């Protein structure tokens, strides 16, 4: 079994290429605390991508020649790998490869605006969503003139960071057509009560869409067991490459949704008078799909399962809790961390130093953290701040990252005092 933490970094070439002699003359390793935005890639994934492009590359489902056949086999094997990764109830025929979570969610929001949404219907999302699970629904609401409602947090200004379930029960009304939410929040890392909210949606016959971008790396539960109809996630947050995402749909919803993109590969017939769509996942995969990236993702999932998602979760959550504890005693810092022990993310800000200045100064100590609104403007506004710095922990994070980051934060606040 893989040992998590610092010893795992030997599998990630990025760490040996990014050791830096800082301006104070001290040589510091890369302290990468931005895995919630994107994880680094293990050698196994890099090797698989290089091997596939070197030996077996061809376009899928189009050529009669051997390379195309081999590429198609590996691409379809990747689809099956994703299905197994999600759970036994999921078949490869439900797995659509997209360019990422954003495209996956756009397919669903756009599709439902054609099939289910109208001026007497309602979309329910939450106030904590990433823009990827917010803007497409706003667009669908504008297009169809349906209502949109946001499940709020229990408290304001960072006091109680849980979703308000009694408000959810009021908002998920009999005219609700779809409820869409993040499994894990990308700013606060809170784990949302998906099963409870899905049950409320089920009761009124609404569909449930789950943004799993932040959760797939840590949770082994099959979201379809909670009664969801669609899940979306990205490869690059799962130790795979950018450019590939996944949309998994219940068989009924896959039949129902019209394509977002049209073109080659997704048609059944084309004449000068009309075109008809292919069935199954092909309908939603117009154009040449992310072949290399999907095959790389299948190896990333092998790697992730070998490391163990539950183990990574426990490891990263322990580090986040330790980081939050140490951060709380640094003067001038406000910490936004629910503290249930499940979060692998800690957001914070300095009372006088802007988040971008702090992040630039941390980079001077070879500490990589995200600063800004984290593509979640409404939530950041609810928290009563204009920007946050966020530390997120992953399989290769360790106690030395916590120490390096805390030391750099203390030095930064001193520098601009």
């Amino acid at each position: 079994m893989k040992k998590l933490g610092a010893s795992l970094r030997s599998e990630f070439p990025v760490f040996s290429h990014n050791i830096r002699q800082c301006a104070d003359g001290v040589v510091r390793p890369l302290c990468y605390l931005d895995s919630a935005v994107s994880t680094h890639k293990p050698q196994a994934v890099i090797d698989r991508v290089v091997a596939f492009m070197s030996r077996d590359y061809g376009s899928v489902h189009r050529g009669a020649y051997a390379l195309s056949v081999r590429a198609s086999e590996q691409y379809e094997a990747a689809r099956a790998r994703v299905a197994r990764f999600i759970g036994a109830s999921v078949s490869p025929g439900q797995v659509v490869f997209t360019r990422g979570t954003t495209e996956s969610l756009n397919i669903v929001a756009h599709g439902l605006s054609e099939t289910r949404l109208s001026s007497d219907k309602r979309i329910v999302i939450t106030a904590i969503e990433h823009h990827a699970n917010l803007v497409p629904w706003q667009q669908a609401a504008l297009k169809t003139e349906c209502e949109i409602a946001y499940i709020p947090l229990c408290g304001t200004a960072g006091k109680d960071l849980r979703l308000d379930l009694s408000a959810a029960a009021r908002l998920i009304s009999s005219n609700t057509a779809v409820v869409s939410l993040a499994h894990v929040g990308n700013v606060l890392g809170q784990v949302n009560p998906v099963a409870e909210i899905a049950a409320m949606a089920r009761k009124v016959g609404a569909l449930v869409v789950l943004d799993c971008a932040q959760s797939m790396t840590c949770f082994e539960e099959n979201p379809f067991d909670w009664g969801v109809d669609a899940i979306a996630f990205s490869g690059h947050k799962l130790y795979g490459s950018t450019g590939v995402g996944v949309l998994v749909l219940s068989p009924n919803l896959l039949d129902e949704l019209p394509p977002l993109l049209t073109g080659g590969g997704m048609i059944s017939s084309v004449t000068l008078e009309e075109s008809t769509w292919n069935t199954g996942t092909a309908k939603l995969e117009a154009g040449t799909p992310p072949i290399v990236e999907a095959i790389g993702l299948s190896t990333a999932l092998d790697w992730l399962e070998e490391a163990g998602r539950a183990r990574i979760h426990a490891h990263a959550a322990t580090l986040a809790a330790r980081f939050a504890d140490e951060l709380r005693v640094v003067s001038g810092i406000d910490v936004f961390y629910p503290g249930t022990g499940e979060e692998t993310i800690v957001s914070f800000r300095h009372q006088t130093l802007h988040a971008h200045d702090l992040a630039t100064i941390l980079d001077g100590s070879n500490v990589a953290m995200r600063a800004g609104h984290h593509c979640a403007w409404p939530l950041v506004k609810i928290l009563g701040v204009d920007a946050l710095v966020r530390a997120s922990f992953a399989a290769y994070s360790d106690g030395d990252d916590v120490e390096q980051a805390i030391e750099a934060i203390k030095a930064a606040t001193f520098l601009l005092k």
Partner: protein
Amino acid sequence: MLQGSEINKETPNLGELYQEIIVEHSRRPRCKGRVEGCQFCLEGKNPLCGDNITLFCQLQPSAQPNALPRIKVNFEGSGCSISQASTSMMCEAVSNKTVAEAREQINKVEGIYTGRVGSKSEDDLEEDVEALHGVSKFPVRIKCAALPWKTLELLLNENFDDLGHQRPESLACKINEPCGNKTRKLKVISSE
């Protein structure tokens, strides 16, 4: 672990970015405050990071009837210290200049923060804005320094012709209208 690996020594010096003059301007911004009933105003944003400023530009009364107008710029806004200090320095630097002189200043300072022109040591600076040369070593922060200058350039281009005379069709006060679906309103349901 650190032995035998490649060590990157090209670390930019944070002291060059956060020069005393910049830190001082960000803490004690000049020309800050909303100007009600202002002749020309324009909002500038860096949407990805949230820096946000609004420039309020007024024409100074002129002693001679045919003289080119001179401007005075104030601002309000929030964001990182580089964007706010750059705005404060700009308002100070362009005030009481003609539109043509202000455009020249915008062009000159662009050369400073992008690194197109060489830098001076902090002791040799003739103007505060020259302290922005340190930003050029931090490519991701150039947009922070550039925000007020780009916004003023746009404001001047929209309202003044090449010679610096006010355009007849000048739209007086205008807050930037971003692209987006503005014609239809969302029906947002409250949880109350």
